[in-house]
């Protein structure tokens, strides 16, 4: 209270606005909830039974999906599958990032760019989903196939970002550091690594949702022991629409959460370096 009295009226208004929820914002939330409820009610009403618009064998009723999801969450099975999917994704990132960095460094040299540039362009145009067949022949029906597919896909995202970052380096800074006697590793540590961080952030923002999508695709095509795609595949093959839809909903929620978290992280980073980009 004292604080409000001694501060300027504008500051007090700002503080008050921060703590009082905006009525319009509340209206939007309520309307969205009502809209979702209406859609779910229609789905529930027109699903299953004789002459139903939505066949229950493909799309289960929302109530059954919710019940299956609750069951999967309660027994923890879905989190084990999520763990397997994320572990394969993380391994693919760990493999692809150093490879992309090395390739970007190679193509920074005049000869490297002259020779490797067209090869990388051709390889980039390969429809990546088709590569799964090559990886099946190479690694069989195993998690290695998933990792290879995801690593190959995200490698290009990081490669182009690293390349852009290296091209944008301020050569005057590099020359100055050399004049002060810095060695190549020192220049790399003191300047290059820090300068390309924004490119890495942007690449990660794009690469992780993409990697998640490709990992699920790989799990659907090459069902191994565990994973969200494997689980979805199993339930659809056993004609269990309730759990299948529950896994599908879970995958969509995970994708949205990953995207939202990365968006928040990228926006925070942009703000921290003074770009001030907000989502």
């Amino acid at each position, binding site marked *: 209270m004292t604080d409000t009295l001694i501060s300027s009226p504008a500051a007090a208004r700002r503080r008050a606005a921060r703590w009082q929820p905006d009525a319009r914002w509340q209206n939007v939330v309520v*309307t969205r909830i009502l809209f979702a409820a209406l859609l779910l009610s229609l789905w529930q009403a027109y699903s299953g039974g004789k002459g139903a618009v939505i066949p229950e064998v493909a799309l289960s009723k929302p109530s059954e999906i919710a019940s299956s999801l609750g069951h999967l969450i309660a027994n923890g099975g879905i989190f084990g599958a999520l763990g397997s999917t994320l572990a394969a994704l993380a391994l693919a990132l760990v493999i692809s990032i150093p490879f992309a960095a090395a390739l970007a460094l190679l193509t920074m040299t005049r000869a490297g760019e002259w020779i490797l540039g067209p090869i990388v362009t051709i390889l980039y145009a390969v429809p990546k989903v088709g590569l799964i*067949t*090559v990886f099946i*022949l190479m690694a069989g029906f195993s998690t290695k196939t998933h990792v290879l597919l995801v690593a190959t896909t995200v490698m290009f995202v990081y490669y182009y970002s690293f390349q852009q970052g290296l091209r944008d380096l301020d050569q005057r800074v590099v020359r100055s550091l050399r004049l002060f006697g810095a060695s190549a590793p020192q220049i790399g540590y003191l300047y290059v690594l820090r300068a390309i961080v924004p490119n890495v952030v942007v690449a990660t923002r794009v690469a992780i949702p993409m990697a998640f*999508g490709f990992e699920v695709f790989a799990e659907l095509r090459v069902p191994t022991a565990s994973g969200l795609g494997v689980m979805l595949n199993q339930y659809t093959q056993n004609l269990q629409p309730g759990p299948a839809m529950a896994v599908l909903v879970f995958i969509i929620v995970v994708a949205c959460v990953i995207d939202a978290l990365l968006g928040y992280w990228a926006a925070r980073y942009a703000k921290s370096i003074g770009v001030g980009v907000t989502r």
Partner: protein
Amino acid sequence: MNPRSWQVLGHGGAEVLRWVVSLGLLLAVWQWLLVPHTSSVFVAAPSAVWRELGSMTSDGSLWSAVGTTLSEALVGFAIGLGVGLVLALAIGLMTPLVGKLLEPVVTGVYTSPKFVLAPILFIWFGDGFGPRVIVVAADVFPVIAIYALGGIRTVNTDVVLALRLYGGGWRHVTGKVLVPHISGDLITAVTVALPRAITIAIGVEILFGTTTGIGGLLNTDTDLFSAPGVWATLVAGTVISALCIALTQVIGAATRRHFFGDQAGGRNR
């Protein structure tokens, strides 16, 4: 080669030479370094891939597969384009409530991996043309909607107001302001979405386990452990994908020239 020789070749000639040398190197590494040291189960020699491509071309299986995949991709793309534009116009031009309700749906669909729809659609509709097109359209429409909406939201309202004051109706506003303004965003959306449509079509064919389309050829060759077949189909897929990327860029440049009268495609806001 001395600098004078480069000048004789010119920029275009030097670029062609670069691509020839680079491709030659790729093929040499593939033929003499990769093939002798890897299993023939998954790596085929370029000569075997070339022979397979010739055989697939002469018996018509390649053209049939390319036709199937392209038709799925293009029909799905056309539907996605239509749905995306309608959604963008509804969100951008109608009452804000419509935008607040529909925008999270578009963003949610954009964020989700579309391949998860494949198993459900397979049970619902089978593995025919329809479900493949649905997955492609589901991938395309959020991209179109998001880019078009970006364009709609940056229209200069002063220009719209001035046009309305001079007696212009919605037809004039749409034709004179809205369409030229969002065309740049739409071109970008098409450049992003069209190559994706081909990838999604191939992916769905693979997931459905079909025998038609490029994905179908890949499935069949994998089942037969035919490495030359797999690599030949991948080469064909890469050529189509590259042609598609080049085509979208040419169309983009032409459209930008038409609307903006320059090659850079600068927007006249």
